[in-house]
């Protein structure tokens, strides 16, 4: 199982802070696709950065069961 986190405006648009995907291994690209299918209203899933296990990841990066994935829309701290 892979856990996927949403924050800020994405969390509000999804209506949930997280979703679980029952899959053994996949890629960042396919997670993005899965999220868009699950929450069609989540436009930011297209452009937001993705972090795997708390580190920014590329589209082709492998994601395995037990990993945590987070969608990181443009940050605005400071």
């Amino acid at each position, binding site marked *: 199982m892979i856990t996927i986190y949403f*924050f800020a405006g994405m969390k*509000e648009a999804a209506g949930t802070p997280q979703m679980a995907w029952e899959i053994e291994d996949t890629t960042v690209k396919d997670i993005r696709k899965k999220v868009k299918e699950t929450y069609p209203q989540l436009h930011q899933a297209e452009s937001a950065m993705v*972090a795997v296990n*708390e*580190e920014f990841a590329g589209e082709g990066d492998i994601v395995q069961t037990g990993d945590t994935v*987070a969608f990181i829309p443009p*940050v605005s*701290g*400071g």
Partner: protein
Amino acid sequence: MEQRHNYYITEKPLDPSPLIQQVIRPEAGAVNTFIGTVRELTEGKRTVALTYEAYKPMAEKKLEQIVREIETENKDSRVAIAHRIGKLDISDIAVVIAVSSPHRDASYRGSRYAIERIKEIVPIWKKEHWEDGSEWIGDQLEQTAYSVDGPEEGRT
């Protein structure tokens, strides 16, 4: 416990003093501190409060990375950074950065680097609350002081 680190995310009010104390040391002659506070007016619109949300474990890792970047670039610099999350009122402190170094130039450079980098890579988001609504704010890197009517071409 978290205050023992020189980088942390907290829900409690921030006091710059312990962060400044953390970087003062005999080798340093200069400490530059940057404090970000909640501003009431942004582009003419009155903010009544802000809410900051963080992906906390990753945000702390990224603060650690920024500290390491500065201390690697300037071996004699020491850095402490704290960012508050949750609901903040006008004038509340959202972020404190303290950078010490033997000479002042490196302390200013390190401090400035840290705040720009926070606005670039640390997963923290703010929601502005106005009297008539609220909104999550996207990327607000102040790339230039002339963003409204500056001379650059090709801005969006």
